[in-house]
């Protein structure tokens, strides 16, 4: 008898299965689906005219996204008016990620990446765009795409993607594919028509594991996206040989937004946001920006509790170091380093707080060569 009922129970529960329980719950005051308004509260943006990196920073819109609380896709939409020309959309989700290179640092380029990444603080946003009339989502309510059914001469339905803005850059430098977790991506409308409204859909592929709120920076600009990289390079000066993927991460900086209990944005311009302390310095290191410390050095300093010290504290530390060099019996410098390391603890898995926010991963997670 019990055996007979089992299939019925399974069948009944199967019909009711939504999978929602597999997804993170809603985060208070952080939208799962967002309409990005213009700065004056309007709904149709005008792509910015960018001629230097300062304008990139001024024109970037920042906001936070959270889970929808269900299996439904979340994200944000942004409408803009066609300019009659090329339009670039650039998006950068919190924060930066890399694969740990476990081979020891013979390669000067790979050496910084021998440090593990904090895999808990990265979200993933995918960008597509097309004419608003073809957008299948309900802005602010449910995300959609640009796929419609076309009926051919024989009456067979053919799904057609009306996407006009597909990502030009991915982690693997492959066109028409999205960049991965924590990685910036961009797409270009090759041309836009005056008087036509276009929609950009920023789909939340994943939110950070630590706090389920992903900070995002998005830039809508007239012209080519490659020009944007040029403006950034002119201002920031990437080290020679820095590959595109590193450079892309620093076009939009500061997207690691410090949570505010009652506000998830949007904020307009780099100066309007409150990013986690040292997050921009971390990005600078990741991007190989000239005069920034190398990424592994940043990570070493972070785990040692040296990141974020005030100028006075650093000065005192330098004095202790000098004293230790003069007198080998002076242990104050070593004791101070021990104290700082002991006081500083990284919180990787849970929601970070002011004094335990770490951008690099747990060095104890480093695999050994030959581990398989």
């Amino acid at each position, binding site marked *: 008898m019990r*055996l*007979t009922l089992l299939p019925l129970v399974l069948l009944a529960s199967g019909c009711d299965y939504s999978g929602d329980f597999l997804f993170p719950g809603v985060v208070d005051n952080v939208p799962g689906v967002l309409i990005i308004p213009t700065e004056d509260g309007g709904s149709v943006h005008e792509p910015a005219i960018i001629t230097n990196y300062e304008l990139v920073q001024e024109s970037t819109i920042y906001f936070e996204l959270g889970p929808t609380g269900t299996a439904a896709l979340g994200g944000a939409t942004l409408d803009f008016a066609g300019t009659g020309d090329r339009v670039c959309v650039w998006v950068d989700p919190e924060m930066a990620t890399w694969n740990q290179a476990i081979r020891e640092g013979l390669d000067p380029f790979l050496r910084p990446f021998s440090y593990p990444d904090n895999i808990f603080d990265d979200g993933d946003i995918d960008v597509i765009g097309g*004419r608003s009339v*073809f957008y299948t989502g309900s802005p602010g309510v449910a995300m959609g795409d640009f796929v419609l059914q*076309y009926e*051919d*001469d*024989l*009456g*067979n339905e*053919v799904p*057609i993607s*009306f996407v*006009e803005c597909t990502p030009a850059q991915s982690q693997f430098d492959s066109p028409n594919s999205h960049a991965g977790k924590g990685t910036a991506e961009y797409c270009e409308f*090759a*041309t836009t028509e005056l008087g036509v409204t276009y929609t950009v859909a920023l789909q939340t592929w994943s939110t950070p594991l630590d706090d389920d709120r992903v900070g995002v920076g998005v830039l809508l600009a007239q012209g080519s996206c490659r020009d944007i990289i040029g403006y950034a390079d002119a201002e920031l000066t990437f080290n020679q040989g820095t590959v595109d993927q590193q450079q892309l991460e620093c076009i939009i900086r500061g997207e690691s937004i410090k949570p505010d209990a009652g506000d998830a944005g949007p904020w307009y311009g780099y100066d309007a946001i409150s990013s986690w302390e040292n997050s921009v310095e971390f990005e600078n290191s990741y991007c190989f920006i000239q005069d920034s410390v190398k990424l592994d050095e940043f990570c070493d300093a972070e785990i040692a509790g040296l990141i974020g010290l005030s100028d006075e504290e650093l000065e005192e530390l330098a004095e202790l170091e000098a004293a230790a060099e003069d007198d080998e019996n002076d242990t104050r410098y070593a004791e101070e380093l021990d104290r700082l390391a002991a006081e500083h603890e990284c919180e990787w898995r849970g929601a970070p707080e002011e004094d335990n926010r770490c951008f690099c991963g747990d060095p104890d997670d480093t695999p050994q060569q030959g581990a398989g």
Partner: protein
Amino acid sequence: MNRTTLLAVVALVGSTGCRYDEGLVVENLTGTVKIPVAAGTQTVVRADGSTEELTDSKLIGPVFLGLYSGVDPINVQEAYPYPTRGPQFRGDEPGDTYPYGGTTVGDFRFPCFEDLVCKTVSNRFLDFDDLVDWFNNALGDSITDAAGQPVETGDYMRQTCYDLLDAANDEEVRLTATDRNDDGAVNELDLDFVLDDSGEFFVADFEILQQEHFYDQSAENCEPGIDCPGYTLWGFMDTPNYAAADDSGVAGEGVASYFSTCDPSAQNSLDIREYNVEFQGGAFFRDILNQPSKRIDGGDWVASEGYRWDNVYEQPELLIDFEVF
């Protein structure tokens, strides 16, 4: 219900599952393509200024065959008969024809010399001597090797191919004919296109593998794949443009190639990187069946009428008889 009954029910469900008919009609489609001799005839102007009218199946480029929902006559979609299109929504980009499937007769093969990228089609040459002779003498467009030296013998080309492809025989290079008709000799009858008995047409067989049948959804009282109005077979031939190649240089650097359907720097083409040789072998553009008009230009030939393929067991003869100007 006892356990035995339950097991019997499960066995019954399982056995019916094995016999489940998805209702799909999937068949290998076969037929022939006919092209007028005029399409394989060109007046060649050689580098030394001499001219000659040549008629040869080597002048027949790759033939593209697609299965479409319909084909419009001349001056509806284009100035030549053309498959019906879906909506055009991306600037000047022509609408997609959304083909159900297709194939080609002849394929771009790795040519072993950069000088020949996008100039060599499979099953147009009997052997390497035939190939070298065609370019050097018939066309007067001498082949050069990686060092810029003239390639004068088929043996030298064969050896170069073997070296670059790590091949041990001609079949592995796939550039020249094999004894396809099993008559014990490799000759003109083993090429894709063979002159028919009338001497008026080049004829080739084609096969479209594992093609799902699509038919008119409004048709009633008919059997799909047998007598329901089905898709339409249509195709075109990319005629080699030797005039464009007279001022040839390095393929892929903005210099015209023989064939408009060949992408000299296609990502899926063979990329050779040896210490003294570095080039990509060229391959078809990826959108040819979807947007044929992007690749069809003056001198190419298209089918003036498509063949509506209702019965998948029929073996149609598609005539590619309309020259595009």
